[in-house]
């Protein structure tokens, strides 16, 4: 057992739901107890879909346990087929049904429905949502896709976008345009918007664009093997990655790598002098592996940030993220426990966090600016406006999104210059969003530096550690607040290593020069 409050991923059948809801003409019969329908509202509320997810839940109850649940399942399948007339069905069990050992796949097979019925085996107690989506899509592709003649013009499939995917809707639009500029048309986008009939035509494409490895890689590997279709390895998030993607497509197709960069503004914005203050900003990156890898490259090579930590919650991506972290000279954090992530953030004291909805809240608690780069996300990250992450427009969107929460350059100078001023002080916060001006409390400041009510720092060092002399404590307060936590910790470590019992101003600056190296 593991105690948990927040989970980055849902159970695997939610992944299957994401595939079913993304598609049209497919129906999912899910052997599940009353209450599992809660997952519907992820789609109708967070993604604001205007239709019910195409799922029938068998809704078994305690009194059915024993013999009747298998019958319930059969009836549900028959009724779903009669009512919705799908082109194909997927059937499977949720975590509770997995325990009662009815065999949805076997039962559905014996029913003789006149459509393909695809059984799913999703181990609920070992795997999670992304695996569920990847495996479900793979099984559907395996059941439906067949070798067919290639299209005359060069085409590709877009593989991996699902319902409830972070910016999948607009990434499809952007990547379709990108490919069109390269002279490649899209054969089928799947699972998003595809029908089972469309999946039968997958083999007509010359190659596959793997948009999201988390939810499309198994299907791409199968198509590579069985249909002879190579797939792209570069995910076009960021300017550099988009160029690499174009080059990769050019290599696969023999076409020229043409990119229409007339709308690309991110490189100039990043080069303009206003962005100089972004140089070396310490950033921590966490989310799903694909987004983290893309974000790290953008952060370092396109924004000039210093990546001080990175990690992902999906174990499937642990290996590439560990390797990437080594390249960046940082330690990877592979964990699905948000408390681990919070502890790492506190330890690293970054100036910007790029993460998920959970990191947004951690950042809020710690008073650190944050932008969202990865699922899980809340309703505000399914925006009405066009907001891709991929391609040319994606780069523009990312620049705005990441810079937005940071204190603007001029503001930062004002904060540093006038930190004793009544308006520009520590408690006023690091962001100009959502706060009204907080005047500095009268009592805080010069005379009671260590424990003023406006002091957001941890209490002075615990027993055995060096104590801060009052003048050193006062000097520490002059250090900009976003690096002060780190300065405090560094100084205390420095003092401890040297067996000092008191920290003076000199100790503070000795430590500063020691760590500056």
């Amino acid at each position, binding site marked *: 057992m593991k105690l948990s409050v927040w989970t980055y991923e849902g159970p695997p059948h939610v992944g299957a739901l994401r595939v079913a809801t993304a598609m049209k003409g497919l129906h999912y019969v899910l052997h599940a107890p009353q209450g599992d329908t809660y997952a519907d509202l992820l789609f109708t509320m967070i993604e604001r879909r*205007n239709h019910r997810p195409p799922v029938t839940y068998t809704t078994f109850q305690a009194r059915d346990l024993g013999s009747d649940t298998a019958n319930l399942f059969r009836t549900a399948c028959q009724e779903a087929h009669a009512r919705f007339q799908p082109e194909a069905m997927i059937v499977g069990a949720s975590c509770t049904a997995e325990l009662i050992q009815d065999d949805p796949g076997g039962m559905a097979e014996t029913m003789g429905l006149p459509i393909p019925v695809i059984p799913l085996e999703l181990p609920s107690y070992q795997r999670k949502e992304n695996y569920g989506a990847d495996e479900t899509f793979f099984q559907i592709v395996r059941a439906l896709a067949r070798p067919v003649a290639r299209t005359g013009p060069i085409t590709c499939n877009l593989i991996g976008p699902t319902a409830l995917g972070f910016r999948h809707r607009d990434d499809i639009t952007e990547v379709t345009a990108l490919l069109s500029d390269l002279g490649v048309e899209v054969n089928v986008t799947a699972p998003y918007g595809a029908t089972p009939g469309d999946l039968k035509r997958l083999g007509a494409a010359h190659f596959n664009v793997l948009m999201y490895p988390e939810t499309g890689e198994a299907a791409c590997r199968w198509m590579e093997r069985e249909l002879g279709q190579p797939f792209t390895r570069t995910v076009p998030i960021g300017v550099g990655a988009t160029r690499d993607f174009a080059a990769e497509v050019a290599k696969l197709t023999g076409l020229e790598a043409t990119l229409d960069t007339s709308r690309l503004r991110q490189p100039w914005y990043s080069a303009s002098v206003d962005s100089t203050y972004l140089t070396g900003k310490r950033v921590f990156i966490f989310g799903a592996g694909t987004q983290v890898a893309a974000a790290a490259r953008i952060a370092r090579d396109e924004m000039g940030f210093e990546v001080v930590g990175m990690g992902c919650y999906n174990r499937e991506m642990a290996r590439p993220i560990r390797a990437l972290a080594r390249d960046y000279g940082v330690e990877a954090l592979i964990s699905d426990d948000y408390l681990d992530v919070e502890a790492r953030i506190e330890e690293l004291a970054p100036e910007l966090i790029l993460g998920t909805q959970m990191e947004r809240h951690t950042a809020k608690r710690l008073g650190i600016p944050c932008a969202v780069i990865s699922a899980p996300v809340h309703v505000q990250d399914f925006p009405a406006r066009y907001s891709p992450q991929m391609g040319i427009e994606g780069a523009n969107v990312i620049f705005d999104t990441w810079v937005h929460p940071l204190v603007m350059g001029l503001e930062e100078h004002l904060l540093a210059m006038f930190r004793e001023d009544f308006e520009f002080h520590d408690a006023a916060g690091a962001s100009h969003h959502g706060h009204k001006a907080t005047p500095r409390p009268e009592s805080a400041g010069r005379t009671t530096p260590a424990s003023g009510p406006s002091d957001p720092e941890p209490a002075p060092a615990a027993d055995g550690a060096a104590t801060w002399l009052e003048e050193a404590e006062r000097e520490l307060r002059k250090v900009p607040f976003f690096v002060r936590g780190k300065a405090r910790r560094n100084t205390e470590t420095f003092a401890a290593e040297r067996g000092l019992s008191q920290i003076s101003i000199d100790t503070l600056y000795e430590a500063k020069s020691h760590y500056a190296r």
Partner: protein
Amino acid sequence: MTHQSSLAAPAGCRDAPVLKQRGQHEVFCGLTGIIWLHRKMQDAFFLVVGSRTCAHLLQSAAGVMIFAEPRFGTAILEETDLAGLADAQDELEREVDRLLARRSDIRQLFLVGSCPSEVIKLDLSRAAERLSARHAPKVRVLNYSGSGIETTFTEGEDACLASMVPALPETRDRQLMLVGALPDVVEDQALDLLQKLGIDRVTVLPARTANKEVAVGPETVFALTQPFLGATHSALERRGARHIPAPFPFGEEGTTRWLSAVAHEFGVDKERFESVTDAPRARARRAVAKATETLNGKSVFLFPDSQLEIPLARFLTRECGMTAVEIGAPYIHKSVVGPDMDLLSQGPTISEGQDVDLQLDRCRAAQPDLTVCGLGLANPLEAEGLATKWAIELVFTPVHFYEQAGDLAGLFSRPLHRRQLLMKSEDIGDPATPGAIPDPAPASGGRS
């Protein structure tokens, strides 16, 4: 008004035939009750023993609350826990020890059963006993089931309160017990009204903290403030307490009839009752009248959700001038909602349980002016052109008693008012369709 006698309305629907269906239920399970119970019971922690699905449900239902160090969590069963049961008991003890060591503010711990823990027959009552012995006297450990195979949405509160009743100390005092978790502001208003009526010995289940001594005994009479408390009702009767049947305190009439039933039990005279209730009654009537302009003459269809449907339909039809087409409830406890059914005029279909596709067919055929339903159905029905009201809000918003009567009516009139405000638009398409967005930057030339 006269006490009690007015409750025996002749043309009620208590004996109307009930349409019972089963099939897919589009409802929450009882675990969801934890979301509001943990806010109410300030020193309680709710530990669900379940799967990742249970944790995901709580996270989805709790929204932003999850980020505020909530007093609930899920011990997620892993593959190794499914292998041997003795092992699971040890695992649970270890998790509880760690939890209680970290959270010294916890005085009551509820082990909450889920579908997976019920199916593998994990004995949580034995675990609760062992853990109670281990952590006594500081922490009391109870258990109940909030599983979907046994409970629907608000029944989770019922199961929780019912689990507390056998453990309550015995009293022989004559007292009134209010049963049901209400928002603090509403609870205070209710206590204030009762005190003005001269009813002094009042306890509330659940109390805000475990230290508040709530006791029960043969001289206890209890009034339910929520209609979904069937099991708690039975548990209290087993302790010798007596139920005061009454319509539920929604709207001016419901509140007055509820108070009147209690006043009658305690021999409060008519003058005193009127002097206490006249002013708030008039206030409530005025507040409801505003919303009624929008609601009057409109039809309403209620999908099953919380068991509040029957009392709310009574309020909407009698005080807001609406007509009910169908009133669906997950369960109908006639000993509890009978007085409300007596006041509902005959006509609407009364349904218990659900086959959601068939119910949707009936709803579409009826084309009601307003449909009260869950979040999984609301947007799809809006897209079909039906105005909806999310049912879950009725559980999370203060809606009981006089001062909230206007707010309650407002919850139903707002969606209709909004539809009037927004121009009928041809532009309502599927927000999830890619490519529906025009070129984002036409000024810079766009692409071909």
